[in-house]
């Protein structure tokens, strides 16, 4: 621990520190390190409670002391959102990481927030099941972090996003309340749907401590086909034709870049007989010569986009558009990237959700992102900046809030009236 960190941690009132240590044990309270900083905001302590009850007791003390708390799983997406206006404490869920109940015959699971997606999937696979979600970095990413960032991928087309898979949640509110809603059954309309409220809330309303999900069977077989297009318009025509067809595909994504012609990929899952029939239908939808069976799975393409070499010259943004506006969005991306001398790549799912990577001078990145956001927001679409160089001029991560921002602030105010959790990181300064 260096001298500066020591003096920072001394800021925490010693009586409070003793109370926290009494709750979680001396081994689970650490002074923070440089690596714990969030967008250059350096917290003072990292606290790792061992149970959700401990976490609730700790967060109550921190809230009473007026400290700002950053909930953390495994840090894979800790930089998403705006920089915190304050950050005193990192509250880690890493120590409660167990699968509480896999009710395989009921196709449900209840899991603690700190469990990684990979560990969860490995357990579910023992009974031929899965959480039908292809989130980023499953070997590290935790259930709590994935929920808080609403991270989903290509499988969303068929199985929905987290909002459609989560059936119950327990959260710790800043005042120490441990509240559950939903339940362990797939069909349940008793009370408000708080699992959806906290999904994608970036930990600003409460700390997710456990969640229950509906599950799906692992596929019997699967096959992926690639379809080449001459340009964005042809790719969009193909995607819309598939979506309007009676194919029962599981996923459909299209890649665009400044280097290569667009490629779309389609995933089928099911019986051998079903897959063979669907391949035949696919070949009638696209020019047969353009359809190739993929030998390597392309379904981690989003991770490839994130595998950039220089974080100081790269920006990553999530876009959400209507499928029919894919062509103008890609054409604008190409045009503004070219005008600002930026390299670019994009991956767009058939749901209209996509991921854009731009590389080049930080000032030019800022200009191109602003142009793209302005255009998308004009079409009732959105662009959320997930990564940008530290030296890029400031750009709000979320974009323009709609007319429901006052209501969102009211919800925040009722659950976290002191602004304890992730202050300033969410939409509209929440």
């Amino acid at each position, binding site marked *: 621990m260096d001298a500066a960190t020591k003096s920072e941690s001394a800021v925490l009132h010693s009586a409070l520190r003793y109370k926290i240590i009494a709750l979680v044990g001396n081994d689970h309270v650490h002074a923070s390190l440089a690596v714990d900083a969030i967008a250059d905001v350096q917290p003072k302590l990292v606290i790792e409670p061992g149970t959700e009850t401990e976490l609730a007791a700790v967060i109550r003390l921190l809230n009473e002391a007026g400290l700002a708390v950053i909930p953390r799983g495994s840090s894979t997406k800790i930089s998403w959102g705006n920089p915190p206006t304050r950050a005193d404490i990192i509250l880690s869920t890493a120590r409660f990481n167990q699968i509480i109940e896999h009710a395989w015959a009921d196709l*449900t699971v209840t899991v603690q927030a700190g469990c990684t997606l990979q560990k969860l999937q490995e357990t579910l696979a023992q009974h031929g099941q899965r959480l039908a979600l292809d989130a980023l970095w499953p070997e590290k990413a935790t259930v709590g972090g994935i929920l808080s960032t609403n991270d989903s991928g290509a499988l969303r087309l068929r199985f929905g996003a987290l909002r459609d898979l989560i059936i119950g949640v327990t959260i710790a509110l800043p005042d120490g309340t441990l509240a559950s809603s939903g*339940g*362990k059954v797939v069909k349940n*309309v008793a009370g408000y749907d708080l699992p959806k409220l906290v999904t994608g809330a970036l930990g600003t309303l409460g700390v997710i401590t456990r969640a229950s999900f509906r599950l799906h069977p692992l596929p019997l077989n699967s096959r992926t086909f690639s379809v080449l297009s001459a340009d964005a318009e042809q790719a969009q025509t193909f995607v819309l034709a598939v979506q309007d067809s009676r194919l029962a595909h599981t996923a459909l994504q299209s890649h665009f870049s400044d280097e290569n012609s667009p490629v779309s990929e389609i995933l089928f899952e099911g019986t051998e007989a079903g897959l063979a029939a669907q391949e035949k239908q696919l070949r009638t939808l696209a020019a047969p010569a353009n359809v190739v069976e993929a030998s390597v799975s392309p379904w981690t393409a989003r991770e490839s986009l994130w595998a950039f070499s220089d974080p100081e010259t790269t920006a990553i943004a999530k876009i959400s558009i209507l499928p*029919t506006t894919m062509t103008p969005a890609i054409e604008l991306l190409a045009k503004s990237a070219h005008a600002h001398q930026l390299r670019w790549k994009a991956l767009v799912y058939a749901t209209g*959700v996509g991921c854009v990577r731009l590389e080049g001078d930080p000032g030019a990145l800022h200009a191109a992102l602003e142009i793209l956001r302005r255009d998308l927001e004009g079409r009732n679409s959105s662009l959320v900046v997930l990564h940008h160089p530290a030296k890029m001029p400031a750009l709000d991560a979320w974009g323009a809030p709609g007319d429901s921002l006052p209501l969102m602030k009211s*919800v925040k105010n009722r659950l976290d009236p002191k602004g304890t959790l992730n202050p300033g990181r969410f939409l509209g300064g929440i």
Partner: protein
Amino acid sequence: MDPRIISELRAIVGERGLISSPEELHTYECDGLTNFRVMPRAVLLPNSAEQVQAIVRICHRERLPFVARGSGTGLSGGALPVENGIVISLARMNRILEVDFANARAVVEPGVINLDVTARIQHNGYFYAPDPSSQSVCSIGGNVAENSGGAHCLKYGFTTTHVLGLEVVLPDGEMVHLGGKTLDAPGYDLAGVFVGSEGTLGIATKVILRIVKRPECIRTLLAAFPSTNEAGAAVSGIIAAGMLPAAIEMMDNLAIQAAEAAVHPNYPNCGGLLLVELDGPVAEVEALMTHVDEICRSNGAWEIRVAQSDAERALVWKGRKSAFAAVGRISPNYIVQDGVIPRTALPQVMSEIDRLSQENGLRVANVFHAGDGNLHPLVLYDRSIPGQEEAALALSYKILELCIAAGGSITGEHGVGEEKKSMMSKMFAEPDLNTMHRVRCAFDPFQLSNPTKVFPTPRLCGETPGEYAPHPLETAGIAERF
């Protein structure tokens, strides 16, 4: 009600949009749950979002509670009027505003009938997936309030899965837009919170729906088992085999008898009837259907039929979807319950229901969405026999307690409403309910929108913004501020 307010309301909706005479108000004193009745002060029938907004602004100014109503088919008393309040009927706001096939979206007003959405889009091979049994009469707005399900939500999801965005008039009269045509609008998923909030957070005036392409083929299989236990074991076998049918429905013998008496679906007379529907590409469905057939036979099915035509399939479903009303053929009165259990608890819960039925001398017919464990026990009784209605209600609540004890829920699709609010504190702990209540206060600090529903005890919001005005519940001495 103050004549000044009545005339202000009349000015918004016109003479034909206001009902205030006692004889006409009787129509609105209950919804599909007829054993709770309250006369509203007035019923308003706006025909635009702007009219809804103007009405709600007056309600907010006057602290006048209001209840939104769609078609009034709800089975938990969600649209039951509240004392000294008005009813806002959305029945006249029944336009389908936009259909966008390329993006698979439709924008509708809340009074549109569920089945009318499908009727409008089926020529292009699309349908609207949530299919509550009342879909030929229930409204999209009511479906949004209750997060309605239906037989096919096993595969396709619930109303909340298919609502992408909402235009909402909040209880203070402000209009906001939640979600939208594109996914993942930045910010909290308030559309997700609003759907299923049973009219307690405001009134939806426009709904953006996801529409779905019809699968290449649909096959419906009917299997007769000696009892619901064997039928339940077959369901487990189907799930364990890694299949996700479009629907799996189960009926017990009493429910079969009722359906036969009412619509003659030609069901086999058996102890447990299973209806399994698979959809998708022909080759896929045919391969899986053979497997379902084998699983049913190995679990004791003594008769298996596959509907051979659309007409046969429609008849099979007619029997199932009319099951509630059909019970009227075998009993003068009945209560429909709506519990959920983990599917594996079915044999144990069924035998408990049977025991309760015998102990209380009341027959219980059972209709289930078996794939997702949603039970609809129908408790049969005769209101003309003194005490029997109370006994039937008590029995129906005991069944819900069984569901809670099995790790399930008190409602899978009908909502809590008026009927089950007392059960909420059996299912949720006080901190859970308090947290939900805090969300309610964010939307409706004066609790004007369908107050007295969902939550077990009246409770008021602290730190209400603006000038203090006593809540009607406070004035009436029913609740106190804390």
